[in-house]
């Protein structure tokens, strides 16, 4: 990836992170930690990869994305707003009564391809979309993002079995391996590891990825496109809370909104990062 493109993507991802902080701060609730860990991946997908059109959010041949870890809706909403699906002002009323942006993704929001939030379900819907593409000989891709804690849900493995059986090679599942879930480290709670080996055993092609390095992200999605006859699992190593110093790798920031002071500090840090990237 050339430096210019990379800097642009990094700057966009930084703005997406600011949207996450903006949204959760105004909502006074929500999930900043896991939202911040997927911002670079979402930015790459919506700004450099996916065939989508904010003017036609339901375009039949668009690429789809199902946020299976639906509690990280602030990141999805922020990237969709940044891409022009709706006004960034909407982020300020996230989770408010009467607002467009619900606490978890809702299919009626422009750009949101599937309602999600009850963990383990999004990947099944993504399988259905990929199956429809296959039966219709359509070429759209279906991306779904799962949490590493989320894969403790049994339904994920029902879907994993199904996707391999039907050779859903338009399906790319991204597992956000930030190592933390609500009750603590995933390895302490009820370990889903080893993650790559599990997907391999279920018949998937597995690609490791550094979730905060656009060269690694680009390479992973490029490799995914070459795979025929198998679904692809990208296991991304990420940092929960990435981009905001005091949130990084802190389990306490899984489902807690920043207060006024924390909001100011987070925005100041992200503004500094953005200035450096744009400077």
């Amino acid at each position, binding site marked *: 990836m050339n430096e210019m493109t990379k800097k642009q993507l990094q700057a966009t991802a930084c703005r997406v992170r600011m949207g996450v902080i903006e949204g959760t701060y105004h909502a006074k609730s929500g999930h900043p930690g896991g939202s911040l860990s997927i911002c670079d991946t979402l930015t790459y997908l919506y700004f450099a990869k996916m065939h989508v059109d904010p003017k036609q959010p339901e375009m039949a041949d668009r690429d789809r994305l199902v946020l299976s870890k639906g509690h990280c809706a602030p990141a999805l909403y922020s990237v969709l707003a940044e891409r022009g699906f709706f006004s960034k002002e909407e982020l300020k009323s996230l989770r408010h009564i009467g607002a467009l942006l619900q606490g978890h993704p809702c*299919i009626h929001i422009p750009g949101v391809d599937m309602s999600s939030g009850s963990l383990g379900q999004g990947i099944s819907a993504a399988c259905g979309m990929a199956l429809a593409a296959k039966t219709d000989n359509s070429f759209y891709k279906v991306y779904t993002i799962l949490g590493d804690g989320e894969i403790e849900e049994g339904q994920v493995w029902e879907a994993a079995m199904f996707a391999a059986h039907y050779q859903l090679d338009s399906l790319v599942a991204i597992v956000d391996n930030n190592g933390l879930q609500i009750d603590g480290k995933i390895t302490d709670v009820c370990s889903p590891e080893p993650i790559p080996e599990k997907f391999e055993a279920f018949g998937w092609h597995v690609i490791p990825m550094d979730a905060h390095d656009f060269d690694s992200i680009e390479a992973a999605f490029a490799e995914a496109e070459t795979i025929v006859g198998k679904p692809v699992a990208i296991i991304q190593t990420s940092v929960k809370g990435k981009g905001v110093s005091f949130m990084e790798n802190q389990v306490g920031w899984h489902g807690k909104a920043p207060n006024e002071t924390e909001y100011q500090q987070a925005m100041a840090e992200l503004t500094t990062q953005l200035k450096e990237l744009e400077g």
Partner: protein
Amino acid sequence: MAEVQKKATRESYGEALRDLAEKYPDLVVLDADLAAATKTGIFQKAYPERFFDCGIAEANMMGVAAGLATAGKIPFASTFAMFAAGRAYEIVRNSIGYPHLNVKIGATHAGISVGEDGATHQCNEDIALMRTIPGMTILNPADDVEAKAAVEAAILYKGPVYLRFGRLAAPIFNDPQTYQFTIGKGLTLREGTDLTLVATGLMVSEALKAAELLEADGISVRVLNIHTIKPLDTELICQAARETGLLITVEEHSVIGGLGGAVAEAVTSCCPVPVVRIGVNDEYGHSGSAVDLLKEFGLCSDNIAAVAQKAFSEKK
């Protein structure tokens, strides 16, 4: 008089899917390793490329159906009622109901008439569960003719539909030449003024027989066939409440939360009259032949007539 023909509505379901496939090219069928029992195997044989076995994984099947629906397909996700409404309840609620997707759930082997398999497979709770999902339509056809019509009505309706079918062969009493099915519109099968039997599914033909028995005793009985549990035909039910003053609901389902519950809720606000609910009481079933079980649980014309007679005698 020729012997009444019988067919299980699950069989009607499989045949209808096959017969409607050409007319509706977006129709696809999913099953969870029960195609031989749910009768979707009939469709599979004719249209293998539009049939997807999901294996014994009902939660994923419902989610896959949701995804297919977002892409314009009309998926029929089939399994036993126990697993469709029970095991997969939360997936149906969140991945199908909440986004209001165009998924049809073909639930077979509903009720006590599953028979020998016993309590684990006798689902008497599915209507109650599905009724609580906002925007869910629930169809419970009574015979072959109605079941086939219900399948096509479900295809033509855009939104989630739960279709309930039985394992046991049911008498065919509707005329395929004249029968008209409209979602949400109940049918008056018999006029009467003393009381109304409000029946659904397998119990409609039993209610008709019970009406004959009661008529012989001089009681004028109205019989309603409520094939759509949701949205309920409150107009027809409230009219019956006003005109006959006594409703007796009959269903092969728990007396909690099914047709009886829905009817009681409706008349409470429009015309409060006594509502006597016949169904499976708050208990589990057990093994036995379907016919023996239906008799034991009071889901037969003799018991319906007896309960109705008692209720009528207590009517003011």
